[in-house]
């Protein structure tokens, strides 16, 4: 673990090098999330309860989503850049190092904007999530599992570039999972709900872990942990197999 931790230390040092910019970026993202909570407040003022979801449940969903997404998109920022690095050849820089490429890559860069997301989610849960010790523990486990699902999914869709040679599947996958994950899963038609538990596992990134905080359920917890493990393995496998097809871009200085 020495090399990935060294990469993380470097990334943190880079992030903290400009604290004013970090504060501004994180603050803007927190403001954005706050605007969405305002939207949900207005929505439930008019709609009441919708298919079992009320304002408190959606606030919990958003606290899980923003914390998990903030951790992945902020701390593991390169998860969203693998496709671009493959196409422009900048993976070369990591392949020249005596480290395992995927962990090093994932921990090499922190995006300050999404740090604001993670902080917002934690504060939201502390203020509105009724954080008893048991609920806080379920929240923490749910966030870690949701982050594993999101990381695995993003690495998997980004790694498709190894096989296709280009395209926008990574960006499309990112938009789909984050956008669809930010809504209560039960408002969608049945076929789409199935897709959100399988192909684009948005339900496991927000709705399922949020529900587990309120109502522990062994079956749902097992499904969440299975999804977390499954997508983590899928992401690692696609990256590892895909990397064998990678051809050098002769770029030695960017990563």
């Amino acid at each position, binding site marked *: 673990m020495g090399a990935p931790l060294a990469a993380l230390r470097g990334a943190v040092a880079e992030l903290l090098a400009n604290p004013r910019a970090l504060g501004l970026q994180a603050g*803007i993202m927190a403001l954005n999330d706050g605007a969405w909570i305002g939207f949900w407040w207005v929505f439930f003022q008019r709609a009441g309860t919708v298919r079992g979801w009320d304002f408190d449940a959606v606030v919990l969903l958003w606290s899980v989503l923003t914390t998990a997404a903030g951790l992945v998109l902020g701390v593991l920022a390169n998860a969203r850049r693998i496709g671009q690095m493959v196409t422009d050849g900048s993976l070369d820089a990591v392949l020249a190092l005596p480290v395992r490429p995927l962990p090093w890559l994932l921990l090499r860069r922190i995006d300050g904007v999404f740090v604001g997301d993670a902080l917002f989610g934690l504060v939201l849960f502390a203020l509105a999530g009724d954080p008893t010790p048991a609920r806080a523990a379920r929240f923490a486990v749910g966030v870690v599992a949701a982050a594993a699902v999101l990381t695995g999914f993003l690495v998997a869709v980004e790694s498709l570039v190894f096989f296709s040679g280009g395209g926008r599947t990574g960006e499309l996958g990112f938009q789909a999972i984050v956008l669809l994950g930010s809504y209560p899963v039960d408002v969608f038609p049945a076929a789409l709900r199935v897709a959100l538990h399988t192909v684009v596992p948005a339900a496991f990134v927000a709705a399922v872990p949020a529900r587990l905080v309120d109502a522990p359920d062994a079956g749902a917890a097992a499904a969440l942990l299975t999804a977390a493990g499954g997508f983590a393995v899928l992401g690692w496998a696609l990256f590892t197999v895909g990397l064998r097809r990678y051809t050098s871009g002769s770029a030695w200085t960017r990563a």
Partner: protein
Amino acid sequence: MNRRWAAVAVGAAARRTAADRGALLMTAVFHLLVVSALGSLWRAAAGGETLGGYDADALFWYIVASEAATVPVAMRLIERIGDDIADGSIEVELVRPVGVLALRLAAELGATLPRLAVCGVTGAALGLLVTGTAPPAGAVALAAPALVLAVACNIAAQHAFASLAFVVRDARSAWFLYQKLVFVLGGMLVPLELLPPWLAAAARSLPFAAMSYAPARLLSGEGEPWLAAVQVAWLVVLTGLAALGFAVGERRLQRVGA
């Protein structure tokens, strides 16, 4: 460049956008995703009843149009224009035989129109699939030009906002605030009839409603053609503000470095 420069700029930008099939496909898919999510939410909320005078189908068509009016427009245009002003790259545009703002407005409108067309077609297909009924022909006839006016208002407003960069040099964060204003006060996420009364009143008196609410309200079947007149009025005001901002800014602009 002759007097037809505006049409040339619009046409060239539109062809450039249309040639990037991958980006157009991304726009279409993103639009479908947003409409599916938000439309499903509002349909579920309405159920078999009405909300603010909208039934479930009308709400879905509202979202189709509100998103079609906003998804095609580059939301970070303010940031891009601000960067061009702050780093001085706008200087080369000052030597052209047409105004900087006029050419930028024409080019941005041209670049947006193909994306608008794609969103219109995909949104209509999804709307028909989900609701099973098309909006009244009159509503479509009013909403189509209202969508173009909405996009034009949005582009003009972003240039007006971005002209602040001539003074503050860094308008990059302004796009974020602007985006939220369009989302909420523009009626993109919520029909204005469903906002708290005080907020709805404020929204109706601001230009953001011309950028999303107007075409959405028209497509949802409400025969209120005066909304298009309001859009035209806001387009004139916003273009005027942008022209003023750029005119003042261009006089302040100082070249730094070699």
